[in-house]
């Protein structure tokens, strides 16, 4: 089996001309030095980059949703950026109902020791859809599922977009949206009735329970036993 994931050493791309970023002192609220990737993004995707905000020393790049996947893929693949690690996918809804919902990606470059925040704004009244970055970062799978679970944002291209934290039959909506009441939409007894009606076993899909994909990598004795029809885990 080939090594599909090359080992990344922290700071391996740094040279004497581009030293590692040091911990800044007296960081201003707004402004300050940008992450160099922001300028590179502006040069590479002049139409997609809407604006760049530096707040508390962290760079946020607002991009258009249509070209998000191209941007993320370029940030991941380009050796001058090499953002190997997606640390978070989340979203923000503001209490000001006119402000758009923001979907946030936190990218980290281990080789360059950089941190970049990407944001896509989804205007109110438009469908909450944005491209999934799962083709680039496989770790986005559960992050996007959680974001879908809490905000109802659909990620196009996600292989298995289901609720993650709440159960799949949950009917009350998306809890982190501002129009969601704190105690939920149903009465306590109705919530309890629906929760108790769920089977604990039904939380997992067959894909999660199945080991068919890993069959060839199992030990020989386990393969033999499974081939004879022995059931495991029950």
């Amino acid at each position, binding site marked *: 089996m080939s090594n599909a994931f090359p080992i990344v050493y922290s700071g391996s791309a740094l040279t004497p001309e581009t030293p590692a970023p040091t911990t800044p002192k007296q960081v201003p609220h707004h402004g300050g030095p940008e992450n160099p990737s922001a300028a590179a993004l502006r040069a590479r995707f002049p139409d997609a980059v809407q604006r760049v905000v530096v707040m508390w020393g962290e760079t946020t790049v607002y991009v258009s949703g249509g070209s998000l996947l191209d941007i993320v893929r370029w940030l991941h693949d380009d050796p001058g950026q090499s953002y190997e690690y997606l640390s978070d996918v989340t979203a923000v809804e503001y209490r000001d109902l006119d402000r758009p919902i923001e979907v946030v990606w936190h990218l980290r470059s281990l080789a360059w020791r950089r941190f970049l925040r990407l944001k896509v704004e989804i205007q109110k009244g438009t469908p909450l859809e944005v491209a999934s970055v799962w083709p680039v970062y496989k770790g986005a799978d559960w992050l996007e599922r959680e974001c879908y679970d809490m905000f109802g944002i659909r990620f196009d291209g996600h292989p298995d977009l289901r609720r993650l934290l*709440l159960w799949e039959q949950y009917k009350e909506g998306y*809890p982190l949206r501002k129009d969601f009441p*704190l105690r939920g939409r149903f009465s306590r007894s109705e919530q309890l009735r629906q929760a108790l009606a769920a089977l604990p076993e039904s939380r997992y899909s067959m894909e999660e329970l199945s080991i068919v994909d890993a069959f060839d990598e199992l030990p020989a004795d386990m393969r033999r036993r499974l081939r004879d029809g022995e059931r495991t885990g029950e």
Partner: protein
Amino acid sequence: MGLSPRPDNTVVSYDPASQEGWVATRLDFLVNWSRANSLWPMPFGTACCAIEFMATAASRFDLARFGMERMSFSPRQADVLICAGRVPLKLAPVIRRIWQQMVQPKWCISMGACASSGGMFDNYAVVQGIDSIIPVDVYVPGCPPRPEGLLYGIMMLQKKVKGERMADAAIRNEMEPDPSSKLYIPPSSIDQLGEPFGNAVHQTRSGL
């Protein structure tokens, strides 16, 4: 003892002069005494209360003094379910099933504010008191309770166990939930108990 002659088991005789080796007691007392001093706990720890429960089981507070050092992680061999921590709605069918898998006699301790009443989590995700899912014998207040508090609750449970009568078969009856709503208590009571109170009435964000 090995040299003494074997007693004749076919004859029951009462000789006040030689009562050595005899104990006479009530069966209720004997059974309850042995049950109360070997309550095997089924720990259902979901939050910080479970840390206090671990401290209770560790050497300083030493749950073994109560015959409870044997944590039974299988509900089929447990006597007392200790629910330590908040129970989200997603776990409600799980704790219900664990309770149903435990064999009689069985008891339940609701440890801490969250398990007893939902505590500070008066929101869409948390069960407002596990007594709406399963019957509870002892509530231990605190957030989280100190080990002394849990020990006091355990001693209260022991007192309760020692007061049981075997002739009273009704205390072993398994409560069956209502088939349509799957609830033990009427839905209106659950709604009433789940009403916000105190400061919580001002903390809802519904309708912006």
